[in-house]
């Protein structure tokens, strides 16, 4: 290549000048945009910080009184929930869809399981979505089909879900179920056998993940979640952000457990013991 030193220096100098005056060039072409963008960015971050320190006004939480829970009540709660949300009862375990289910202490508290605790060992535990403050399922969802609402409910948008099941892998509580088969096939079979459909609530389709939604559709109507209505002496639902709420009062008086706290998900389902 034929370029003398003089020409090279000229080009290099000119390029540096253009590079250095990048912002200046923007100012000439679109005055004000760079400043506006920068201010917007700073404002956005500032706003986030402000919200975090003030905290949300509503933070829904569920309290389950393990001492008051019996097998019969657990079954009634499960049936009510699964009726309200048209959850099919697949006979084959591998297709199972569960929003709320019963399990033992050993499986519910794998982290803090104490084999000498004869009291807890005999008790039935009701497990459900913990509606975590720091939900790992939301972080991994590639399409934002699952998201955290301002009131703390981890919602699932079936219109968006692509069925990748990342959320199922991320959830440490096994709270999510995948529709391997069309849920309507099983629902139709059960309807033929006398099952009732909740006509106010839709079904799901094949290929989406579903879970407990804290009865968000009932909360919108000013009602309490179905499980609380089914067993008001076992389940308590309320606002954790309000220091004078019923749930906060109970939490002050009773000892409570939360599942897998060491993971930092900050669950909002409490087990009263």
């Amino acid at each position: 290549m034929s370029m003398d030193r003089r020409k090279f220096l000229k080009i290099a100098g000119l390029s540096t000048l253009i590079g250095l005056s990048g912002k200046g060039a923007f100012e000439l072409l679109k005055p004000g945009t760079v400043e506006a963008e920068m201010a917007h960015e700073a404002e956005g971050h500032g706003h986030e910080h402000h919200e975090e320190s003030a905290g949300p006004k509503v933070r829904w939480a569920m309290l389950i009184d393990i001492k008051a829970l019996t097998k019969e009540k657990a079954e009634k709660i499960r049936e009510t929930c699964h009726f309200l949300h048209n959850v099919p009862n697949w006979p084959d375990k591998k297709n199972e869809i569960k929003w709320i289910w019963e399990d033992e202490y050993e499986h519910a508290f794998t982290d803090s399981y104490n084999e000498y605790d004869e009291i807890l060992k005999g008790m039935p535990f009701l497990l459900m979505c913990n509606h975590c403050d720091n939900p790992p399922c939301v972080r991994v969802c590639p399409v934002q089909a699952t998201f955290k609402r301002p009131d703390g409910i981890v919602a699932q948008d079936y219109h968006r879900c692509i069925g990748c099941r990342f959320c199922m892998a991320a959830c440490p509580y096994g709270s999510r179920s995948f529709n391997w088969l069309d849920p309507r096939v099983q629902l139709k079979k059960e309807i033929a056998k006398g099952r009732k459909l909740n006509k106010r609530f839709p079904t799901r389709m094949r290929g989406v993940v579903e879970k407990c939604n804290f009865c968000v559709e009932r909360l919108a109507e000013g009602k309490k979640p179905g499980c609380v209505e089914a067993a008001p002496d076992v389940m308590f639902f309320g606002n954790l952000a309000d220091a004078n709420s019923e749930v906060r009062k109970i939490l002050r008086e009773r000892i409570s457990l939360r599942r897998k706290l060491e993971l930092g998900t900050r669950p909002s389902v409490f087990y009263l013991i």
Partner: protein
Amino acid sequence: MYDRGKVIAGLVIFSIIFLFPFLYNHGSASPQPKPSLDTPAIKALSQKKCVEDKQFMITTHMQFLNDWRDQALRDGNRWYVNKEGKKVWISLQNTCLKCHSNKKEFCDKCHNYAAVDPYCWDCHYDPNGSKL
């Protein structure tokens, strides 16, 4: 040209097959569907009016329902205020289909005619019908 006979015969057969659907259906256009608004709930209304005016609903119901969906589900806002200032509860199954209790006549007729298959009905269903 080699194999002239075979090539021409092949072309003729191809064009007959290709044109067959057009020729077969020529002159038999199916009539434009007129969705029925005749339901007991609508009959009982004193003022027969949807959430917004009829023309808006006909032309924009797809975007409108998408907006409703996002508002209810993503923003948690279940109230819609229409152009007249009237509040409406946002719900496909519990608001729309309450009046339009004839999904087969009201929804499916036009959708079938236009050959569109909205995925609403994968999960939502007509609460008035006996079947899922």
